[in-house]
């Protein structure tokens, strides 16, 4: 009896954890299982949790008939471009806010932080008109340009660099190194961990983004995966297995990226959460 009482908290704890994990992962596991089922099996009753025979026909159909390879490429290209540019420009600005002394620096930075309460959707209508003037509607640049610099990215780099002593930079300055040289060969290598963090955040954000690509990309050959998937749902809502295969292909790249680099991702949330 006393042993049961001693074990009871642990039993309850693990019971709750197991239930939580089951509820959290079951939608994702079912998505994967259904994507491998023969046609119609995902709509049977009682629902099947596992395919009777594993088939890759839906994945094949997506690539051969429905041009999914093209959307995968669009998504990969756009997310990579946004990430590369974001790393460069945000790290430069974050460095300036952390280590340069100039008039109005702190006021400017606080103003930027305060602007983070403005929802991005407020800017979207005029942004569309602006990009139309520039001829950027239905182009890759139209997707890249609004996402390449971010206040959050600048904030992340600045917080990280504040912890690095000025003496290190001053020593380089004494040796006569130019500002850009210091940034490129001293600051950037120091920032490596936070740059990885920023890269994951930016890549995931760009990959998963839906509303802006939906607005800017009008030609279906330009679609990113989320836009293509939402579009596919219109015609293939009955083809559960096919839709699940499309969802797997959309979700899998970012999930693998996260699992591989989660240490950096979590560190970024902590840094953002601590100071916010």
């Amino acid at each position: 009896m006393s042993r049961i009482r001693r074990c009871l908290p642990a039993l309850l704890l693990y019971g709750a954890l197991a239930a939580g994990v089951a509820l959290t992962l079951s939608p994702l596991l079912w998505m994967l299982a259904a994507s491998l089922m023969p046609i119609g099996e995902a709509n049977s009753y009682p629902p099947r949790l596992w395919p009777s025979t594993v088939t890759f026909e839906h994945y094949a159909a997506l690539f051969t008939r429905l041009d999914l390879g093209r959307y995968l490429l669009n998504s990969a290209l756009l997310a990579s471009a946004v990430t590369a540019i974001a790393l460069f420009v945000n790290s430069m600005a974050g460095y300036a806010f952390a280590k340069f002394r100039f008039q109005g620096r702190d006021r400017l930075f606080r103003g930027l932080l305060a602007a983070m309460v403005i929802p991005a959707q407020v800017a979207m209508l005029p942004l569309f008109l602006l990009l139309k003037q520039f001829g950027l509607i239905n182009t890759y640049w139209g997707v890249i340009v609004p996402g390449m610099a971010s206040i959050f990215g600048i904030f992340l780099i600045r917080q990280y660099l504040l912890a690095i002593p000025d003496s290190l930079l001053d020593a380089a300055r004494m040796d006569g190194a130019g500002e850009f040289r210091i940034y490129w060969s001293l600051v950037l290598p120091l920032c490596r961990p936070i740059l990885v963090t920023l890269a994951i955040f930016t890549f995931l954000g760009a990959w998963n983004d839906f509303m802006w690509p939906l607005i800017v990309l009008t030609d279906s050959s330009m679609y990113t995966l989320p836009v293509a998937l939402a579009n596919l749902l219109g015609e293939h809502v009955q083809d559960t297995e096919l839709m699940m295969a499309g969802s797997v292909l959309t979700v899998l790249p970012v999930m693998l990226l996260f699992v591989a680099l989660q240490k950096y991702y979590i560190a970024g949330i902590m840094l953002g959460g601590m100071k916010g």
Partner: protein
Amino acid sequence: MTGRERHAALSAGIFLAPALLPIAVFFFLPVLAALLLSFTDFDIYALGDLNRLRFVGFANYLQLLQSPLFWTALGNTFYFVLVGGPLSVAISLGAALLVNSRLTRFPSLFRTAFFLPVVTTLVAVAVVWRYLYHPRHGLLNYGLSWLGIEPIDWLGDPDWAMPAIILMAVWKNFGFNMIIFIAGLQNIPPQLYEAARIDGASAWRQFRHITLPLLGPTFLFVALMTMIGYFQMFAEPYVMTQGGPANRTLSVVLLMYEEGFRWWNMGYASAAAFVLFVLILAGTVLQLKLRGGERS
């Protein structure tokens, strides 16, 4: 300005410009333009010929206030924020307490599992949940039938559509707040709990008098971020319900999208966007005031 100061200002400008110029041109300028746009009758004719554009004062805002559809969207958005937000925060805290418990072995494994939905693509998982919610062969109703619960038409029943979307949204994002709560929990000095245990305080009293008060700042941050995010709901109804049934899941952003980018009523849609912004701002100020008052 001395030469040294001028040099510092110049190099600061060069380092800031590549990020701040795009932010100014592609964010701050459009936000200002949106404010101006909301006082015009910008529509599909103005899109073709700017001479058609007229200044209409507050007409768009008045039209919004008189539109039953806008009030419906506003009500739905508040439903989502006021029910979904607190639910998400509560579940995040619960998960954080479980993962962070002294008894839990392999906490990082559980943390990763709970976090996985956060990194998924919202559109893709919304598609998945559409099928999970299927009234006849969906997994959810099947699971509930084991508990003796009759099938629910989750996305087809006007009363159930919003709870269904909230459930999906909470599943998708509770892991994010959980991480922040875990960080907050780990910042609480363990000596406090030891002292409380020696004094014979129960687990509930420890939670009530140590954990909750010391999590205060974390709570504020999580509540703010969640509120701001939930006010912007768009892809969930776009993919799962298209705002239906009977407009019961139409959100303000979805309404803005439909008016602005489907019907090209950009003046009217800008006004809707600004009302949303003001609401988010008011909610932020209100929470900061309430929490600030609590602390002093």
